[in-house]
C-alpha cells in the first residue's frame, strides 16, 4: 500500500538541510572575508600612518605582493630548531581562522559553528597561537628571540586580567557568553548603549587591542631594532613560507580583534539580519567601513603617543585593568 505520509516527512528535512548548508556557507564566507581582507586592512593602516606623517607610503595592496613574494622564496631553518619551529607558522595562521568562525563578522544571528566556543574559548584559542609563537622564538639559537618572547609573555600576563574582567562583565550585562547573542543587547535600547559600563568596556578593550596586537604605545610595529622588539620578535627567524604565514596570521589576528570590538561592542549595527545571500554580501562593505573608521582612530592614537618604556607598560595595562573593573562595578552593582 502506498504511504502518503512518508512523502510529507521529506520536505521539512529538506528545508532543514538547506538551512544548514546555507549556515555553513555563510560561516565559510565569513572566514574567507577575514583571510582575504586582513592584508588589505594592514596595508591601509600603514598607508594612513605614512600619510599622517606627510609621506607617501606604500600602496595599500603591498602586503599582498609581500606575501606572494615570500611564498615563492626558499625557506632556511636553523639546525637547532625542533618540530615546534616548523609547526608554529601553521598554528599562528589557523588560530585566527578558528576565532573568525565564532564571532559576528557579517551576520547578526548565530551561524553553524557559533556554539562551538564562546568568547572565553575564543580568547584561549588566540592565546594558543601566542603560546606557540613564544616557544618558537626560544627554539632557535638566536639571542634576541627569547628576549622578545619574555617581553611578550609579560605583556600577555598583564593583559590577561583585563581580558577576563571584560569578558565577565560583558557576559553578565548581556546575559550570555556567545558573541552573537551578546551583540543583541546593545542594539536596541539606546540607554543600554550609553550605559557607563559599556563605554568603559570599550576603552578597556581598545587598550587591550593596543597591547595584544603590538601597537604604539606598547610596541613599535615598524621598528627594526631587535633590542626593543616585543611582538615583532616572534617572526625574526622565519623565512619563505613560514614568514608569510606568520605575517598573515598576525594581520588576521588584528582584524579579528577589531571585528570583535566593532561588531560586538562599538557599532553592533549594520550586520545582515536576514538569510539572503545578497544581504550578507552587502554587510561586507559596511563592516569594512567600520573597520576603516576604527583604523583612523588607531592611526590618531599611534601618531600622538610615543612608545612607553618597558616598565611603564605595566602602568598602562594597570590603567586598563582599573578601567575594566570600574566598568564591572558600575554595570553590576545595583543599589
Amino acid at each position, binding site marked *: 500500500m502506498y504511504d502518503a505520509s512518508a512523502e510529507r516527512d521529506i520536505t521539512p528535512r529538506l528545508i532543514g538541510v538547506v538551512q544548514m548548508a546555507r549556515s555553513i556557507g555563510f560561516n565559510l564566507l565569513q572566514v574567507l572575508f577575514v583571510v582575504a581582507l586582513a592584508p588589505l586592512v594592514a596595508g591601509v593602516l600603514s598607508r594612513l600612518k605614512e600619510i599622517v606623517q606627510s609621506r607617501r607610503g606604500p600602496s595599500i595592496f603591498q602586503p599582498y605582493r609581500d606575501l606572494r613574494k615570500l611564498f615563492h622564496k626558499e625557506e632556511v631553518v636553523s639546525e637547532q630548531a625542533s618540530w615546534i619551529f616548523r609547526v608554529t607558522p601553521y598554528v599562528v595562521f589557523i588560530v585566527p581562522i578558528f576565532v573568525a568562525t565564532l564571532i559576528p563578522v557579517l551576520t547578526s544571528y548565530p551561524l553553524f559553528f557559533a556554539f562551538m566556543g564562546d568568547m572565553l574559548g575564543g580568547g584561549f584559542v588566540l592565546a594558543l597561537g601566542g603560546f606557540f609563537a613564544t616557544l618558537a622564538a626560544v627554539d632557535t639559537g638566536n639571542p634576541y628571540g627569547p628576549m622578545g618572547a619574555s617581553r611578550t609573555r609579560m605583556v600577555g600576563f598583564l593583559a590577561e586580567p583585563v581580558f577576563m574582567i571584560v569578558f565577565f562583565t560583558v557576559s553578565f550585562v548581556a546575559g550570555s557568553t556567545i558573541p552573537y547573542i551578546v551583540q543583541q543587547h546593545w542594539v536596541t535600547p539606546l*540607554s543600554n548603549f*550609553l550605559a557607563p559600563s559599556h563605554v568603559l568596556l570599550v576603552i578597556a578593550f581598545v587598550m587591550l587591542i593596543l597591547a595584544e596586537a603590538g601597537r604604539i604605545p606598547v610596541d613599535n610595529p615598524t621598528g627594526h631594532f631587535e633590542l626593543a622588539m616585543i611582538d615583532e620578535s616572534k617572526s625574526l627567524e622565519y623565512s619563505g613560507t613560514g614568514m608569510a604565514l606568520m605575517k598573515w596570521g598576525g594581520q588576521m589576528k588584528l582584524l579579528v580583534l577589531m571585528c570583535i570590538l566593532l561588531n560586538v561592542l562599538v557599532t553592533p549595527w549594520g550586520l545582515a539580519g536576514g538569510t539572503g545571500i545578497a544581504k550578507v554580501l552587502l554587510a561586507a562593505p559596511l563592516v569594512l567601513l567600520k573597520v576603516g573608521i576604527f583604523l583612523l582612530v588607531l592611526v590618531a592614537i599611534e601618531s600622538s603617543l610615543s612608545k612607553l618604556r618597558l616598565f611603564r607598560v605595566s602602568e598602562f595595562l594597570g590603567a586598563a585593568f*582599573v578601567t575594566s573593573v*570600574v566598568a564591572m562595578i558600575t554595570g553590576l552593582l545595583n543599589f
Partner: protein
Amino acid sequence: MANSYALLTSLNGLAAGLFLMSSFGLAATRQMQGCQRFYIAQSICLVVSALLLGLGLHAPDLLAVAALDSVMKPIVIPYLLKRTVPEEIFRRREIDQVLNIPSSLLIALGLTLLAFFLSEYLPPAAGNIGAINLPIGLAGLLIGVYTLTVRREAVPQLIGIFGIENGALLCGFAIAPTLPLVIEMAFPFDMLIIALVIGILTRITQERVGTTEVGAFTTLKEGGNK
C-alpha cells in the same frame, strides 16, 4: 517621557563613570600638567551630571549651579592656579609620591569598592536618576583623600583637595537637589578663595624655601626640635 528619563539616567551614569576615571587619573598621573587636566575633566563631568540631574528632576536650582560651576571650575580655578603658582612648578614631569603607580591604582580601586559598600548607609538619592552619584561621589572623595596623603608636592595636594570637594558635591547634588541657590553659590566661591590663598602660599614657600616638596618638611615634630 519614561524613555527620556531612562536615557538621562544612562547619560548620568556615563558622566559619573567618566568622573570616576578622572579621579583615578588624579591619583595615578605622573605629570603636574596631567594632574591639572584630570581635574578639569573631573569638573566637566560634575557639571554635566548636575545638568542632567537638573533636567531629570526638574530642579532649576541645579541648572543654575551647573552653569556657575561650568565657568568656575574648569576655567577660573586652573587659571588662578597658573597665575599664582610659579611657572617652573608646572613644568615638572615626575611628581614624587610615596607609592608607585600600579599600587596607587589598585588602592584607588579598593577605595572605590569600599565606597560602593559604604553608600548603603548614606541617605537615599532623590529619584532613580541620581542613584549612581552617591557611591561615585564618595569614591571620588576617598580617592582625593588618598591622593592628598600620598603626594609629596604642594600643587597635587591642592588638586587632591579640589577632588575631595568635587566628590562631595557630586553626592550632594543627588541627595539634596533643591538646596537654595544662595547656599549653593557659596561653594564655588569658597573654592576660588582657597585656590587663591594656597596658590600664594605656594609661591611664598617656593621663594623662601626653594622647593615645594612639602612632603619633605619634617622639622616640626611632636616633642620639639632636635
